[in-house]
């Protein structure tokens, strides 16, 4: 099973009724067990692309589909949101259980899976805590556990660590690498952090500024688990430099633009 994004365009209409192109001619195939990062300057439509893929927005034209699906099987997707999107009135346990509730998983299996993923993300002992009692990093762990517990065919992550401080962020990145090696979920990961993309992804898709188009796709050929080792420092820095050279002009232009993300 693979995800095919086929020639997607998305326009938004602003309050004056003008049509604003946000994404143009995006075509991309995400293979099974592949980790793809989408990188681009702010306002390039990378979150929009993720929302379209998740089926939370309607594309203006084009088609997003899973191909080679077993007959009668409905693929599942889950999302890790930047602001976590945890329900404040549910404990960590009940938050993680939500996806399984929606999927009508039987009670025993649900309990077992919630436990498993809470342990996997390192939240054991915090099951009964409410989100506001946790630190930012812990909250996002709960968000990741919730998304992973339904064992989705595609995991979508929308800048999951960008609200965290730099140190927590580095730790969470490392943990995500280990976690991913254990689960090997097909992942589409949106970020504006180049270093993060280089540490995590098999392939990195670079989007240009508005309207977002795919300007380049870079394959990171260093094994994921070895990327923080000293012998690969040079190669990793090389990737980071290439990508930054590619998008820095767009990023500077984006900085000068008045924020109007409506």
């Amino acid at each position: 099973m693979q995800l095919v994004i086929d020639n997607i365009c998305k326009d938004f209409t602003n309050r004056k009724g003008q049509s604003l192109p946000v994404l143009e001619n995006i075509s991309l195939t995400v293979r099974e067990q592949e980790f793809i990062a989408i990188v681009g300057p702010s306002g390039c439509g990378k979150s929009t692309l993720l929302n379209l893929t998740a089926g939370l927005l309607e594309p203006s034209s084009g088609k997003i589909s899973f191909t080679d699906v077993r007959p009668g099987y409905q693929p599942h997707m889950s999302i890790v949101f930047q602001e976590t999107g945890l329900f404040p009135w549910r404990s960590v346990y009940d938050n993680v259980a939500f996806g399984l509730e929606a999927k009508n998983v039987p009670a025993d299996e649900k309990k077992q899976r919630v436990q498993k993923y809470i342990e996997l993300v390192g939240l054991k002992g915090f099951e009964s805590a409410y989100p506001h009692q946790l630190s930012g990093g812990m909250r996002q762990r709960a968000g990741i556990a919730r998304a992973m517990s339904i064992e989705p065919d595609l995991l979508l992550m929308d800048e999951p660590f960008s609200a965290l401080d730099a140190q927590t962020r580095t730790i969470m990145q490392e943990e995500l690498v280990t976690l991913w090696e254990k689960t090997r979920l097909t992942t589409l990961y949106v970020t504006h952090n180049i270093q993060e993309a280089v540490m995590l992804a098999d392939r990195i898709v670079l989007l240009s500024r508005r309207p977002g188009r795919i300007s380049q796709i870079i394959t990171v050929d260093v094994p994921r688990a070895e990327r923080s080792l000293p012998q690969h420092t040079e190669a990793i820095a090389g990737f980071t430099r290439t990508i930054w050279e590619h998008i820095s002009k767009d990023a500077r232009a984006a900085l000068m633009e008045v924020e109007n993300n409506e």
Partner: protein
Amino acid sequence: MNEFIVTNRMKYWQKTYPHWYSLCFVFLLLCLWEAICRAGIVSSLFLPAPTQILSALFTMTASGEIAVSLAASLVRIALGFVIGALLGLAAGLITGTSALADRLCSPVVNALYPIPKIALLPLFILWLGIGELSKITIIATGVFFPVAMNTFAGVRNVDPLLLKVAASFNASRWLTMKAIILPNALPMIFTGLRLAAGTSLLLLVAAEMIAAQTGIGALILHYGDLMITDRLMAGVIILSLLGVIFNFILLWCEKKAVPWKN
């Protein structure tokens, strides 16, 4: 092998309908009402038809009856509202910013707040006479409490960070009040004003029904006693219009006064 196309799962929540739907629905309801009356299902004594009410409204406007009543009511409600709102605003600002005033006055305000203000009318008539003053006072009292309480809440929910900014620049208490606390409270103040608008209309009609020769409330009571229901309903429609216009004016003021919110 099959293909599974990703469709928009937010469709239901993202759906919108054009404005003319509301107009059509109101029109439909009026037609239904008219039809029920025309068919003679309900006696026109109990429920006059919309056209009947409209023609009553026209004759009453033409004879000047509406203008006289409306003028009397408007003077009462305008004076009562402005006085009550100004006092409420002052009380809210003072109790919200001074810890001492809060300790001393808030219990008193909280104790008086739940009293149905109309219960005080006999007392006000005793103190101030049966004339305009007692009616204006009862309206002002009804307006005072929601405005004071909302202003207080708006003052209290100021972001401590913004207060720290002001303190770091050695801003005087007066400047802090004017430049930070008041703007921060404005949206809440307007919520209070709109709540108070409803209360003031209620008290106006109640006071006019208890002790007045002129005014919309007196007019409604008069035609109720005479069982002339179409004229009674015409008065009710004037009240409804008054409420709608009142709310509209406050919304417009809010938009002008709070430009940083949308």
